[in-house]
């Protein structure tokens, strides 16, 4: 135990001495969380800029325009009066949606002639696209209902009668777990998990490569200290820092970004603990195998986007091919992100995250096993021909 604590003590000293490493361990996760938090803080996409090309200019067409103007989801952009201007506005991003009311619209309606309102929206960005489509339908559903009500009132029905008729059959939609359609509730915690994963992995995965580069690894190898103690000592500070960051980022997300983090606290802690063990152990394992810090840094950083995208956290896994899902399930981030959503957003109990917990436990076991069984012997350096940055060194101005 004294040996482990001693190794941990000196690793800790090192973290405090190396400024950039210190920043990475203690500040970068929060920095990224704040940055992404600021990006997603508005949570709901409102004020979609819409242009209304009213070629009819009748009472009815103005009512339609008013319906859009009154919706909190839309912001009517003035000054776009023709189809050509609308086309231009859609191309240069001034508007994301348009409503075109054809000439003689009101007349045609009263004559039961064929006519229709054309709505367009920008499909090139599907966050605009999906939301705008939904908003357009909402506005029109309300508008049509309103018109029917006034028509019925015109027929001489009283208010209550109108309401009774209108409500005959209603399809009430309830949205569970995220009733406000908050994009932040949906996405943000996934990003947090990737931040913790990547920055955690990156910090701990330099712990042995650094010793290799400075040849101090020889001191570890020639000393009679077993591999598991080296792992335990070196990983301990990162494990503690990792868990601290987990708690800090959850608090930050809930407090400042207003992300919904509900569900059982012990479950959230358990998930975080397992995730932290995996990250620390996997990072240490990578570190014992990697030739130098530069290569680790490069490869680990490039993993961020694919890790997030293949997890099924955004684009649902039901619509992802089986082999990609298989690949994704070999990764702890997938289980963590999906499991965390089950607990924190859907507030489900233990039985719904058991598969996630078992998967994480298995991965934690394997990662620790891999980390503690690294060989304390090196292969003699291979004769790689003219090569650069593949051995235990990389360009550095001050050694």
């Amino acid at each position, binding site marked *: 135990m*004294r*040996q482990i604590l*001693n*190794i941990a003590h*000196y690793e800790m*000293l*090192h973290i405090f*001495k*190396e400024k950039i490493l210190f920043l990475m361990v203690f500040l970068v996760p929060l920095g990224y969380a704040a940055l992404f938090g600021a990006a997603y803080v508005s949570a709901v996409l409102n004020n979609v800029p819409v242009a209304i090309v009213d070629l009819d200019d009748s009472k009815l067409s103005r009512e339609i325009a008013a319906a859009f103007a009154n919706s909190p989801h839309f912001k009517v952009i003035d000054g776009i009066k023709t189809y050509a201007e609308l086309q231009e506005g859609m191309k240069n991003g001034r508007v994301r949606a348009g409503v075109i009311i054809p000439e003689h619209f009101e007349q045609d309606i009263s004559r039961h002639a064929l006519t229709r309102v054309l709505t367009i929206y920008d499909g090139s960005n599907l966050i605009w696209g999906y939301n705008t489509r939904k908003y357009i339908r909402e506005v029109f559903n309300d508008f049509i209902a309103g018109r029917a009500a006034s028509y019925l009132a015109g027929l001489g029905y009283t208010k209550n009668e109108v309401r009774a008729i209108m409500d005959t059959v209603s399809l009430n939609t309830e949205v569970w777990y995220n009733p406000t359609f908050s994009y932040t509730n949906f996405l943000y915690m996934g990003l947090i998990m990737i931040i913790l994963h990547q920055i955690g992995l990156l910090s701990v995965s330099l712990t042995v490569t650094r010793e290799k580069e*400075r*040849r*101090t*690894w*020889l*001191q*570890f*190898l*020639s*000393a*009679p*200290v*077993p591999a598991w103690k080296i792992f335990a000592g070196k990983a301990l500070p990162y494990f503690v820092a990792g868990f601290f960051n987990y708690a800090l980022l959850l608090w930050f997300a809930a407090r400042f970004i207003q992300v919904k983090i509900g569900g059982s606290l012990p479950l959230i802690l358990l998930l975080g603990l397992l995730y932290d063990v995996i990250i620390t152990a996997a990072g240490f394992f990578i570190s014992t195998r990697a030739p130098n810090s530069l290569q680790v840094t490069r490869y680990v950083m490039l993993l961020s986007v694919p890790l997030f995208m293949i997890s099924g956290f955004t684009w649902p896994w039901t619509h992802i091919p089986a082999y990609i899902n298989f690949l994704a399930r070999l990764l702890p981030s997938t289980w963590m992100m999906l499991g965390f959503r089950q607990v924190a957003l859907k507030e489900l109990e233990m039985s719904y995250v058991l598969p996630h917990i078992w998967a994480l436990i298995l991965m934690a076991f394997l990662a620790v096993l891999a980390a503690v069984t690294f060989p*304390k*012997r*090196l*292969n*003699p*350096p*291979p*004769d790689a021909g003219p090569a650069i940055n593949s051995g235990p060194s990389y360009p550095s101005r001050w050694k």
Partner: protein
Amino acid sequence: METIVAVKDLTQKIGRKTVLDGLTLEVRAGECLGIFGMKGSGKTALLHILAGIDRFTSGKVEVAGIDIRRTEKFKIYLGLVTQERSLFQDLNAAENLDFIAALKNAGRDNIDRLIERLELGEVLNQPVGHMEAGPYQRLALACALLNNPRLLIADELIGAIDLYSRRIILRELETFLAGGGTCIWALSNAEFMRHVHRVGWLEKGKITFYPPAEALTRWNARLQSPAGQGGDGDA
């Protein structure tokens, strides 16, 4: 006398190059064996195998009667001074002593004694990264001796360092040997041959043993020969 290092048919191939070609050697307790050779002759390769750092291609190596391929246990008997600086550069001298003592699971009581004997008192607060060669080498030796090793493996124990430090190191080496310790010392400077009991001359992957005096004579003869440093290769 007890045999502390027994090497049989040790071969090390790196890529296509055979660095060590079927070496056999024995070192007895209390002996100081010098491994002499030019740069790239395989001294460090041999020492790193003996210290249980590098894997090797074939052969059998026993340290203190333990097959080093089987277990790590022999490392409690080991002290290592490396050729390139391998102490922790982000720590100062005292912290290095403390940390390496912890790695070796050696008691702290040795530290004070070694600080005194190797006269490290004045450099204890210096960061190792900026230390001069002489004090650094003394510190490296102190670190190697922290666990009272039975076998000291020293790669270029003394390089081009100040004479004062050299004297202290040689004095400590003598004490170590007198106390029953064994030393394997890799050297590329023939000048130090007189401090060892036996010289193993490493060349082209083979080792040949000479008494120090004879090794020195051969070396001087080679320096005189018209073929120059390349030598006639009879070693």
